[in-house]
């Protein structure tokens, strides 16, 4: 009787219970680690041509600061253009905002503040094309001669096309690896590419929304 009472009775599947528990824990931990590692990760690699450069993947430090500010200027330039030409007389030539105008409006990256100094104190120059009929052509803002190591130059081009009553401006931002460079002779894409300029491609919010939610 006594020996039978002390007999050890094992559950039929004890080994499998432990194994299942360990496997489940391992799967849960791995899944969580994978989720955390991929939280917010940019998975879509955009196609970038040799004559382009990605602001998201390639820019750091001062170049990134200057580009982000220029990207906002693209929105603001037409507004300031309207302001500076609002009281023009009938024969007065329309003009694009100059560097002094941007100082007045406190607009980076032109505005001379600590951020401008931290970002290499780029010299900004405006090139306004000679008026061809109705001011068609390219206006360009060149930022160059920065004082940081390995700093590039930036170019904001504004192309104007007048066709009948239509008045279109296309604004692009270009980057050159040379820290010191002269104002290009033309804002046409092929000319700039031949001179080593690269069109900057942003990773903008609309692309991230598409990545998250699909087309």
């Amino acid at each position, binding site marked *: 009787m006594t020996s039978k009472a002390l007999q050890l009775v094992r559950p039929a599947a004890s080994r499998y219970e432990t194994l299942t528990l360990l496997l489940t824990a391992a799967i849960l931990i791995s899944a969580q680690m994978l989720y*955390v590692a991929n*939280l*917010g*990760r*940019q998975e879509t690699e955009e196609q970038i041509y040799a004559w382009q450069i990605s*602001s*998201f*993947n390639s820019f750091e*430090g*001062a170049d*990134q*600061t200057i*580009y*982000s*500010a220029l*990207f*906002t200027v693209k*929105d*603001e330039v037409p*507004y300031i253009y309207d302001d500076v030409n609002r009281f023009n007389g009938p024969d007065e030539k329309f003009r694009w905002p100059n560097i002094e105008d941007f100082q007045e*409006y*406190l*607009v*980076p990256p032109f505005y001379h*503040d*600590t*951020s*401008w*100094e*931290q*970002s290499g104190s780029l010299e900004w120059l405006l090139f306004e094309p000679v008026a061809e009929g109705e001011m068609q052509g390219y206006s360009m803002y060149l930022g160059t001669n920065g004082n940081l190591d390995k700093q590039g130059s930036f170019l904001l081009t504004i192309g104007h096309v007048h066709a009948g009553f239509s008045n279109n401006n296309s604004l692009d931002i270009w980057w050159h690896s040379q820290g010191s460079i002269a104002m290009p002779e033309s804002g046409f894409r092929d000319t700039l590419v031949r001179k080593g300029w690269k069109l900057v491609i*942003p*990773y*903008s*919010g*609309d692309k*991230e*929304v598409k990545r*998250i*939610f699909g087309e």
Partner: protein
Amino acid sequence: MQEPNTFKGFLATFVATTLMLFTILIAPTANAQNLQVGVTLHPYYSFVSNIVGDRAEVIPLIGAESNPHGYIPQPADMKRILDMDVMVVNGIGHDSWAFEILQAAGAKDDLPLIYANDGVSLIPIAGDPSGAKVVNPHTFISTVAAIQQIYGIARQLAEYDPENADFYRDNSRAYALELRKLRAKFDGMIAGVNLSGFRCATMHSGYDYIMQELGLNVSAVIEPRHGVEPTARQMADTIDRIKASNVNVLFAEKYFASALSDTIRDATGVQIYSISHISSGPYSNEKFADEMLENLTTLASAIRDVANLTATAP
């Protein structure tokens, strides 16, 4: 003699009652004709309020004291979302719960959304130890990226309310200038200060946009992902990186405190300063500008303190 007075009294009462009824019935109708603009985050409340003035209503989707990090949708959110004509969202990872609320309320295909970051050039999270390029969704803790969003929101709101398009554009420009003046104030606070010794780390990636626009590099970020605490190994690596980079300042979160910042201070000797994520407290027109000025003032204090310490160091 009594009769005319009674008639006059009746007439006066009738006119007053009619006017009162007219006011009660018509006023809400006029109000209801205003665009009802929903917003998911505190900064968007301030942005939209400053753009629309009194010509639209701004409706926050979640309660003022709710934490937008890991927010769990509430039944009241669904009711609020049904009152909106259009909603402004971050859309790149900081308000994913808004899409759950849209789905739950059955408004996913009906409510138009304004993606505030559509026209913003995004940057990766700074100081990621793996070097991975991970999108940073905190575009609203900034002035440059905030202004870009304000212009974008104003343009898109104008499409829903074309009669007020000029009004919205002018307000967006005035608000942008107000935010630019905050930067100018910050510049005045650190005029003549030597920034060469300033090295900072941040508790999370929320401050990358403001640091970037001010030209301040972030050497390390403590949380491997927003809201995710580091493992012991990651923490040890980060502490090593802070020491190796001579980091002297750690920016922690004002609203969502973490004991980790004290651990890092004890291990490295960094000074801790708190910055606002601008995502809690009462909604108001002024909140964004007020808290951004507070953040810039804190940054200026940190920069001045480091410059003083560096100048007096043996």
